[in-house]
């Protein structure tokens, strides 16, 4: 059963891919598999791009990932992040004020 406000997982996943590809000018990210870890170096995302991604999620889906997921488990992979967002999406944008914090940076210090 789909509860009201829930977004389609595949559509959210595609949205996140499209945003990442656009923000980084890297078309290969359009084909990122759901199992791909987003942070920690696997796809080379830097802290600035990661923060932009979370702000974009807040703007587009009304989900404050850093505020709602205190352990940030949802940031493990593209798939976990998309699922977290899809479950909480509020069509029409932000439903609550909040300032998403930056994600953890790549651990090599870049």
């Amino acid at each position, binding site marked *: 059963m789909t509860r009201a406000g829930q977004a389609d997982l595949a559509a959210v996943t595609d949205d996140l891919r499209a*945003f990442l590809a*656009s*923000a*980084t*000018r890297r078309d*290969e990210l359009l084909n*990122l598999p759901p199992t*791909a*870890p987003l942070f*920690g*170096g*696997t*796809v*080379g995302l*830097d*802290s*600035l*791009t990661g*923060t*932009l991604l979370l*702000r*974009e999620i*807040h*703007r587009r889906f009304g989900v404050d990932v850093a505020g709602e997921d205190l352990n940030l488990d949802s940031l493990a992979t593209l798939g976990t992040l998309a699922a977290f967002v899809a479950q909480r999406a509020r069509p029409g944008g932000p439903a609550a004020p909040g*300032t*998403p*914090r*930056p*994600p*953890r*940076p790549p*651990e*090599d*210090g*870049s």
Partner: protein
Amino acid sequence: MIPPARVPPSGTARPENPGLTRNTVPSGGIVDVWWFDARDVTVSPAGLADLDRDERDRADAFMFPADRHRYQVAHLMLRQVLASYTGTAPGALVLGREACPHCGAAGKPVLLPPPGPPPAAGPVPSFSLTHSGDVVAVAVAGRPVGVDTEHDAASCVCPLAGTLHPADAAWLDGLAEPDRHQAIIACWVRAEAVLKCTGQGIGHGLGSFPVGPTRAADLSVNGCTVRQVAAPPGYQAAVAVAGPGHLTLRRAAGRPGRPR
């Protein structure tokens, strides 16, 4: 305007020739900044042998070869630069992590002193490594130091203003594009350079101190002195060094050649 950086005195070793002339670890507020372009560097199997287990594991974890190459170049150049200050072979340098002063988690990478009695070789240099796109920068100083560079974002960066200090967000809000876009990235690299200098993880946020709007002058903030520095076209960068006072940059630009 950004003041021109000074080229190191002649005779200073280039990082690819660490055995020729030893670089002196800078004192006081002096920071050496080494720049590399990952496209200019061929990574050889012999070079990869200089990376430690952790670096090799991280390199192996990259999904795309281009990301792996940039990471390998960044860490090989870091080791060659540090070798030029310490006289230790790049592959024999031991890197560790300092605890984040905020949460205690393993964070800022540091060079560990060699085992045994205190080295006659002189002080252990502090360093900071950053890479973005094809650009790699290594900052070296006698005090804690931080450097950050960012490729100019293709998308709108306005949402980042909200992660900065409220005073910075307020003046950024008054700027017109494209100045605003550039100023937001400028604030970001300054704030991240400060955090990398103090060792506090960026995951705790970077809006607890203001870093704008002065671009040219040294800014004392959060126990550091920070300044915007000249970066390759399409990039912005900032350097921070621990303590108050004047920051003197010695810039070492150029082609690193091939690691061994």
